[in-house]
C-alpha cells in the first residue's frame, strides 16, 4: 500500500486531508510542521507528501527544498496544499520542488484528480 505524509499545522486540515487520502487507498502519517516532517522521513520515505505552505518552525517551502536534497528525496511526489492562490506563489513552490499544487479549500475530487495526473491512482 502506498504511503502519504500530510504536513499541516492545522489539526482539522490534517484530519480532513488524511481521511480523503485514506479513502483513496493510502496509509497516512501526519506531521504538524516541516521540521517534524523531515524527522519522520528519516524513518520512512513515503510515496506522496501533501504539505501546507505557512507553518511555524519550518514552512512548506523550506521543507520542500530540504527534502529534495535528501537521499531518495527526489523520488517523492510533493503536492503543496495551501491558501496561497496566486501565480507567484505557485511558481515559487514549483521552483522549490513541488510536483503539484492544490489551493484551499479543496475536496476529495480535486485530490483524486491530482493523484491521477501524478500517476499515483489508476
Amino acid at each position, binding site marked *: 500500500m502506498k504511503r502519504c505524509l500530510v504536513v499541516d499545522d492545522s489539526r482539522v486540515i490534517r484530519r480532513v486531508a488524511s481521511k480523503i487520502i485514506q479513502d483513496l487507498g493510502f496509509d497516512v502519517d501526519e506531521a504538524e510542521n516541516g521540521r517534524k516532517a523531515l524527522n519522520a522521513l528519516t524513518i520512512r520515505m513515503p510515496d506522496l507528501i501533501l504539505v501546507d505552505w505557512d507553518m511555524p518552525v519550518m514552512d512548506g517551502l523550506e521543507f520542500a527544498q530540504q527534502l529534495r536534497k535528501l537521499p531518495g528525496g527526489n523520488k517523492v511526489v510533493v503536492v503543496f496544499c495551501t491558501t496561497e492562490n496566486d*501565480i507567484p506563489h505557485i511558481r515559487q513552490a514549483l521552483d522549490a520542488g513541488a510536483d503539484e499544487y492544490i489551493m484551499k479549500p479543496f475536496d476529495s475530487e480535486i485530490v483524486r484528480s491530482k493523484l491521477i495526473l501524478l500517476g499515483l491512482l489508476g
Partner: protein
Amino acid sequence: MLPEDFELAARFVKDRSGLVLTRDKVYLLENRLMPVVRDLRLKSVSELLAGIASGDAALQTTVIDAMMAKDTGFFRDWKPFVHFRTVVLPNIRVSRGMKTRFRILSAGVSTGQEAHSIAMTIRDVSSSFPGWQVEVIGIDISATAIAAASKGIYSQFDVQRGLPVRTLLQYFTKQEDAWVLNDAVRGMVKCQPWNLLDDLFSLGRFDAIFCRNVLVYFDLKTKLDVLQKLARLLVDDGVLYLGLNETVTGVSSNFRAVDPALGIYAAHRADRPASLSLAAKVDL
C-alpha cells in the same frame, strides 16, 4: 412530488433530451427543478410542470437546461487525453497527406472543460502542425452551459479538477478570483447549443469525437441512435472516446474496440480493413 407529476416530467425530459429518469431519481428531479421554481417565483413543481404542458417554450428550455448534469472537469480520467496526444495526434500528422486540417468534436461539452482540454493538448504539440487548420467544436443541449464554455472563465475550484498546475500557469491568467483561459486556446474552440437527438450531419466530419459520460444517461435505443449518428460524423479512420464506464459493445457495430477500459473505439466500416484507424492501444 406527485406520481403523475413525476411521469409528466420524466416523459418530457426523455423526449427532449434523451435523459432517462427512473422512479428512484425523484430526488434528482426535485433538486434540479426547485431552484427553477424559486427563481420564477412559482408555487410548486406542479405549477412549473403545468407551464411545460401548456407548451411554454422558454419554460421548457429552462427545465431541460436545469436537468442536464454539469459535472465535468479538465482532462477527465487523464489517460484518454494522453492517448489522444501520443497516438491520435501523431497519426493524424503522418496520415493526412496534403490535407493540413483536422477537426475534433466534444459532444456534451457542458461548461467547456473537455473541449478546452483537447485544445490545450493540441496546442502543446502545435509545433508538429505548422500551418494546419485545427477546429474543436463543442456542443451541448444546455444553452447556459454553452454560454459559460464560450467565455473560458473558471473558478479556482474548476481549474483544480484535473488540470495540471503547470498547464494552469501556461494557459490561464488570474483575474480577481477567476482563472481566464488565454485567447489562443479559447479561439481554437467553437461551442454551440445542439441537441444530440437532432440531426448532427450538418456539423461536418471529424477526425476524433469525444462523447464522454453522455450515453450513460440514455436508454439503449437512444444510445444506438446517437452512436449511429456519431459514426457518420467520423472520418474513415476516426476515433471515438467514450467515458470509462461506457461501451459500444452490444449497442452498435459501427465501432470496434481499441482500448475499452479507456473508452477508446475506432470507426468500423464493413468495407474497410480493420487496421485502418488513427488509434492503437498503448500501454499508458
